[in-house]
Each structure stands twice: as structure tokens, then as C-alpha cells.
């Protein structure tokens, strides 16, 4: 009897051969196409031929030797940091507001703050471009930062709300009853508790801005381009394989950024 139960349980755990093959194939399709950029970046030829005919470090040289590519990278980092910082300040405040405040129309405000996530990027891009042309914000750092801040706010709100969900307001009262001032409570109790949510919100907002290309394509001018815009142009206008080096650098950096917290977390689990 017990034997047949374990047999059923084991059968439950294993997947059929067809399903296994399907999972492997889908896994391959999920990962492999993107990895194409890495061999491409070490190619020698000046076309998008794959696999490349010869090997070289030429395109990394082009990337790090080109004023335009480096400037676009610097612009992307600057826009990303500023937009993420602004989105974090606005988003953390809004997440607290949504958590604490009870008033009519709260649902509507929430939907408003989340709307940039849902609307098609192209509609937002064209609308923002139209207004920014009049306000002379297109092609300016401020314009990029403001447009990307709007996109980052929903991510910050979502991740801070997740940390607030497991947060007990009674702790604030406990701190107050022990004589902590409101500022001390905020600094010593509230912020450490929501810090993980704030950090991941900031990272999400930065990543969103760093990767954003639709709005950036409209706001860009020859003097101010972000990295994704430069990459877009290197496919459409120039057929410039430097994009392969840029893509590989981004892919490797994101992979490291994603894996490092996981490894660190595992290590701290071991320490405990």
C-alpha cells in the first residue's frame, strides 16, 4: 500500500518525455537568441554577419574609443540616476500616502499613478514629445529625466507597497511611547523596515530609464542621445557592429547585477 503511494507520488513528480523536450526547447528559445550578441561583439567584419568570419576586439575598441558612444552611455547613466532618484522620492511618499490615507478617490489616484505602466509606450512618447516641443524640453537632460521619472514612479510604488504590506504601524506608536521623536522614528524604525522595497524600487526605476528607447527616440537631438537611441541608430542608419559590443556589455552587466544579490543572500543565509 505504502509502496504504491510512493510510486504515485514519484510519478507525480516526473514529467513525460514530450513535456521535457518542450521545456528544454522553450528554455533554449528564451536564452539563446540574446546570447548571439556576445560572439557578434568579437567579430572582425564590418557587417552584421553571424557567425562572424573572423575574431577581433575591434568593436570594443570602437565603443571605448568613440566620443559619441561614450557620451551616450554617460547620458543614459545620468538620466537613469536622476530619474530613479526623483521617482524614488515621489514613489515612496505616494506609497505611504496610499497606505495610510483614506479618502474618496483614493482608487482613482492609485490608477493614475499606475497608468504609465499600462498605456502603450508609443502613445505616451508622441504625447510627451508634442508638449515638450512647446516647452522646449526636447533634447534637454531635464526633459529626459522628467519623462523617465513618470515611468519609474509605478515601479517604486509597487515595490514599496510590498514592503509596507508586512509593516505594522503599531511599531511607530511603540517607538513614540518610548520617547523617540517623529524624525528619529522615521530614521530608526520606518526607513530600515522599508529599505529593501525602496532599493528595489530605485533599481527598477533606473533599469526602466536605462533601457527606455521609445520616448528617448522622440526627445533626442543630435547633441543629446541616450545609449539605446545610439544603438537603435546603429542598426537603422549605420549598420555599425559597435552595437554588438554595447549589447554584450549591457547583457553581462545586467546578469552580474541580477546574480550578485542572489549569491550574497545565499552567503548570508549560510552565515546565520
Amino acid at each position, binding site marked *: 500500500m505504502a509502496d504504491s503511494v510512493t510510486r504515485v507520488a514519484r510519478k507525480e513528480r516526473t514529467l513525460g518525455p514530450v513535456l521535457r523536450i518542450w521545456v528544454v526547447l*522553450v*528554455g533554449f528559445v528564451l536564452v539563446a537568441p540574446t546570447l*548571439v550578441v556576445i560572439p557578434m561583439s568579437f567579430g572582425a567584419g564590418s557587417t552584421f554577419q553571424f557567425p562572424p568570419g573572423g575574431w577581433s576586439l575591434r568593436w570594443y575598441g570602437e565603443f571605448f574609443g568613440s566620443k559619441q558612444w561614450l557620451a551616450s552611455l554617460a547620458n543614459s547613466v545620468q538620466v537613469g540616476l536622476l530619474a530613479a532618484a526623483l521617482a524614488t522620492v515621489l514613489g515612496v*511618499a505616494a506609497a505611504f500616502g496610499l497606505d495610510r490615507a483614506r479618502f474618496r478617490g483614493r482608487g482613482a489616484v492609485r490608477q493614475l*499613478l499606475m497608468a504609465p505602466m499600462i*498605456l502603450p509606450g508609443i*502613445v505616451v512618447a508622441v504625447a510627451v514629445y508634442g508638449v515638450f516641443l512647446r516647452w522646449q524640453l526636447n533634447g534637454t537632460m531635464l526633459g529626459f529625466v*522628467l519623462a523617465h521619472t513618470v515611468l519609474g514612479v509605478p515601479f517604486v510604488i509597487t515595490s514599496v507597497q510590498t514592503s509596507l504590506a508586512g509593516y505594522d504601524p503599531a511599531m511607530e506608536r511603540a517607538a513614540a511611547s518610548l520617547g523617540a521623536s517623529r524624525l528619529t522614528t522615521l530614521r530608526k524604525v520606518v526607513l530600515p523596515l522599508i529599505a529593501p522595497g525602496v532599493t528595489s524600487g530605485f533599481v527598477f526605476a533606473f533599469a526602466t530609464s536605462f533601457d527606455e528607447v521609445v520616448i528617448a527616440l522622440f526627445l533626442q537631438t543630435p547633441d543629446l542621445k541616450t545609449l539605446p537611441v545610439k544603438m537603435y541608430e546603429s*542598426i537603422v542608419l549605420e549598420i555599425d557592429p559597435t552595437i554588438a559590443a554595447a549589447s554584450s556589455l549591457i547583457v553581462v552587466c545586467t546578469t552580474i547585477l541580477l546574480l550578485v544579490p542572489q549569491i550574497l543572500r545565499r552567503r548570508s543565509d549560510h552565515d546565520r
Partner: protein
Amino acid sequence: MTAAVPVRRAVLRSRASWLLFPAAAVLLVFFCYPLAVILLRSFSEPAFGLSNYVSVLGDEVQIRVVLRTLRTALIITVATLVVAYPYAYAMSRVGRRARGLLTLLVLMPFWTSVMARNFAWYVLEQRGGVLEKLFDAIGIHGVSLLGSVTGVTVAMVQVMLPFMVLPLQNTMRGIDRSLLHAAGSLGARGPVAFVRVYLPLSMPGVLAGVSVVFIMSLGFYITPALLGTPQQALAAQVIGTRVNDLLDFAGAGALGAVLLVLTLIVLAVLSRLAAPLGTSTAGGADRG
């Protein structure tokens, strides 16, 4: 004392609503206002009236763009569902470790840079590229995906997989497998049990995934702009070209509004479909 605490809390509550003000203000000025302006322009330029909408919905070329966009989004959604369903099913069945790996894999397209991913597909789909050679090898000649709606569809399915797999496996993990055993003991085995028991139970996940993927596919810009062709343009491409080449904000606004209305209709239909499912499976849907 007993009365003071609730009063103080009420004060805090009303004060808390001010925390929403900065974010709301920034969004109103830099998000809602631009959208309102372009919508207004779609009704008021060049002359006050519906001329832009007449030219979107009355012009054969434009109608074809809208229909092509809907058809492409539908194909992408169905293809993503077909690819994702078994994968999500497998994810819901394997152990914790394997599930972690499969989750990591499915999030790959989500994490990789938009431009890197589209560049990779551009390279794979180009004339004389890997995919063409692959099709040549199995005897199908002259497949060039780059510059076709098919090429856009293939790349889009990959991008959309995370948005389909995650809601699917969320629902599937909540499905009580003893129901399948019960079905089996009552004589419904294999495919019958799947169609009559498992599939209906997984419907909330299917609908959630389908709505996200369909709506996102309607508005995608970069992939069609890079991998597609102006001859078979999708709505987002037309909106982009109108503004870029002609500075025709009014026409772009009208097409954008049509796109938004279509999105809202799809959302309404799907949530109407999901409503009767919500009560019976609400417990399972938000697990994991």
C-alpha cells in the same frame, strides 16, 4: 485619552493624503496633460471636428493597419499561450530547485535590454542569417523573416513569454491535484481529465496572461520598427512615422485614441469573461 488616539489617527490619515500630492502633480503635468493635449488636437486640428477620425476609420489603408495590428496581436497571444502553457505546467510540477531555474530562464527576455534583444533578433532574422539557413537545412527555402510581420511575431512571442508563463503557473500551482485523481477514479483519464478538469481550473491564469500579452502586443513599437516593414506597418509604427516625418500630431493622436479604445474594449471583454471564474478559484489564483 481614549478619545484622543482615534482623533490623532484621523488627523494623521488626512495628513497622509498630502503624501500623494507630489507624485500626482508630476504625473498630471508630465503625463496626463500631454495625453489630454494630443487627444484634444486629434479633434481640433486642422479644423474642429472628427476629420482625423474619419480619415483613420474611413481610409482603407488605415483600416487595414488597424486590422493588421489586431490580427498580429491575436496571433502573438495565441502563439505565446501555446508555447507557454506546457512550460508553465512543467514549472508547477517540478521541485523547488528546478522551478527556480525555469523561472530564471523565463525572466531572461524580461531582463535583457530591449535594444540588445532586438538587435539579436535582427541578426538572426536577416537575409542569409541563421534562421534562413536553418529553414534551408530542413528543406524550406527562401524564408526571410526580417522585414515581415512574421519576423515581428517570432521575436514578440519570445519577449511576451514571461508575461504569459508567470500568471499561468501562479494559477496552476494553486490547482488541487487530488481533483485529477478524483476525475481518474471516476473514469476520466488522460486527455479527458485534462480538458474537463485541469483546463477549466487553469482558465484564470490563461485569461490573465492573454489580456496582458494582447494589450502589450497592440502597442509595441521598437520590434515592428526594427524587424517589420513600413509596407505592412502596425499601428504603433504609423503613429511614430506620422509624428517623426510629418509632425502630424493630430492624426497620430486619433490613431492612438483608436488604439486605446481597442485596448479598453479588450480589457472589458476579458474581465467580463474572468468574472464568473474569479469566485471559484480566487484562492488559487494569488498563491505563490
